[in-house]
């Protein structure tokens, strides 16, 4: 990437409607997570048994749940867990995926072994492998992040490997090799920059998967502990009272959908700008 090329793709990103809408919605969630204590109206963990299952009102914008907790404040605080899990999983899968993908793409002997391992990991239905890992490790935010990183890392590894394989035979890499550059230097200086685009695109989709998977694990009771306000946990508690109080599960689920939508838009937009070959018509 030359210095002159940089502003153009940034400008194209800033002009892409999917990127703008996706980033704007995501920003709202990020602000909600950082300013959770300031923008929420109640303490989300305080139980008020006398105020249980009240419908949305001026006091409780989105109603209360079966323990009298304020759903609006729960949704606001829940965005913290979702974003924490999403961002960390995205970072860990990217780091792991780049390491594994570079090794596999660059070393023929390790390639076979590593790729068989990745195939094996991808042979599990994603959510079931996550459930199984959580079953072994027990509830907890960090365990959720580790489980989801293990589940989604192979996708990034395979993507990076195929990018490396397609680039390593190009003339400029051959030229670098002829100049006596070492493999590691070639990988880091010449191959890795070409992986940035696909990695950003993949990262935003993994971010979306991770947020959804975290909510599913919470909903099933094997994610973050039930006392932690998270969208999945609140939806799970809403399931028990769906006959009397639809709002308990409706609003955290809507937040989850919106967060997923914003990341998918962002991913689609990034792909259109950074990696037009991957574009679906």
């Amino acid at each position, binding site marked *: 990437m030359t210095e002159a090329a940089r502003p153009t793709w940034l400008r194209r990103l800033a002009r892409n409607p999917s990127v703008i809408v996706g980033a704007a919605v995501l920003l709202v969630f990020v602000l909600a997570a950082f300013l959770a204590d300031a923008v929420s109206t109640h303490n989300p963990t305080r139980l008020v048994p006398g105020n249980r299952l009240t419908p949305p009102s001026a006091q409780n914008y989105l109603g209360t749940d079966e323990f009298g907790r304020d759903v609006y404040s729960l949704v606001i605080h829940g965005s913290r867990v979702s974003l924490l899990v999403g961002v960390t999983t995205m970072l860990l899968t990217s780091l792991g995926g780049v390491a594994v993908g570079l090794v596999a793409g660059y070393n023929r002997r390790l390639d076979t072994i590593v790729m068989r391992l990745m195939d094996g990991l991808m042979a599990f*239905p994603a959510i079931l492998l996550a459930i199984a890992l959580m079953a072994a490790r027990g509830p907890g935010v960090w365990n959720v992040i580790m489980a989801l990183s293990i589940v989604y890392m192979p996708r990034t590894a395979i993507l990076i490997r195929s990018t490396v394989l397609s680039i390593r035979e190009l003339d400029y890499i051959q030229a670098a090799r002829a100049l006596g550059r070492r493999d590691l230097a070639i990988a880091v200086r010449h191959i890795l920059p070409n992986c940035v685009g696909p990695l950003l695109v993949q990262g935003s989709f993994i971010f979306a998967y991770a947020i959804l998977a975290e909510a599913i694990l919470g909903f099933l009771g094997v994610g973050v502990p039930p006392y932690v306000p998270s969208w999945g946990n609140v939806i799970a508690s809403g399931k028990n009272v769906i006959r009397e109080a*639809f709002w308990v599960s*409706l609003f955290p689920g809507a937040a989850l959908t919106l967060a997923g939508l914003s990341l998918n838009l962002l991913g689609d937009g990034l792909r259109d700008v950074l990696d037009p070959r991957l574009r679906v018509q």
Partner: protein
Amino acid sequence: MAPYLLRRVLAVIPVMAVVVTIVFLLIHLIPGDPVSVMLGPDATPAQIQGTRQALGLDRPLYEQLLAFYARVLRGDLGHSYFLDRPVTRALAERAEPTIVLMLSALLVAVVIGVPSGIVAAAHRGSPWDRGLMLVSLLGVCVPGFWLSLNFIYFFAVRLRWLPAAGYASVLTDPVGALTYMVLPAVSLGFNQSALIARISRSCMLEVLQQDYIRTARAKGLSPRVVTYVHGFRNALVPVVAVIGITTAILIGGAVVTEIVFNIPGLGRLIISAILRRDYPVVQGVVLVTAAAYVFINLVVDVLYAFIDPRIRYD
């Protein structure tokens, strides 16, 4: 065709070897002593030692792994102490609802997805196209389990059209089975129908740009015949692959949907097994679903090669 088939079938072996190894390792990921965790705080040291020996956890890791392979190859997935029966039997008893749910959801996904994608592509850029693609983008993002809850509230609680939860076997009560299955199948299939619609649309658009389509148009065939007869058949090839992927994804989704609708399938089995720390059952469910996933992918690849001869020569 034969060499391709053979290669494809043989490729399953290393994948399944890795799968079995990962399932084996699950029990060693349990923090602390897995046996004390399984038996709970009331277990005596003698019980713990006995169970440890029974599970072979006192032997070196590689010996345990070989023993695990040997058992799995014999079709022995261990014994559930809680359910007091072999894990394979527990799985067999719970498989029917999961399979019925998966197949019904697949039907919903294909019946909604393929026609939507084809219509959207045939009328590219029209309000129909835009509308369908917007709905499909939403469909990809809406979490299935949340959609299920909203369906329950709307169709079961408010309108009282359908039961909120439960299950009846197709074999004993076909009408009951249908009424119980509508909401789970639609909420599970909806996400995937969105995916299938998007892929069908893009495959169809690609095919419609090819030369033979232009030739067919130039011959004076009606646009309808060109789109739906000439185009559709070739666009279907990648769609078959997507339907395969969909089936595999539905296995995971079925687990979650079962919890929402109280369907006594493999999903409820694994979640209740986790709460009871019944690890042989957890391992069994994960192993069997992964094997099913691998098998479905194999079938799809073979079908794909059958429909599209170009694949075989790669």
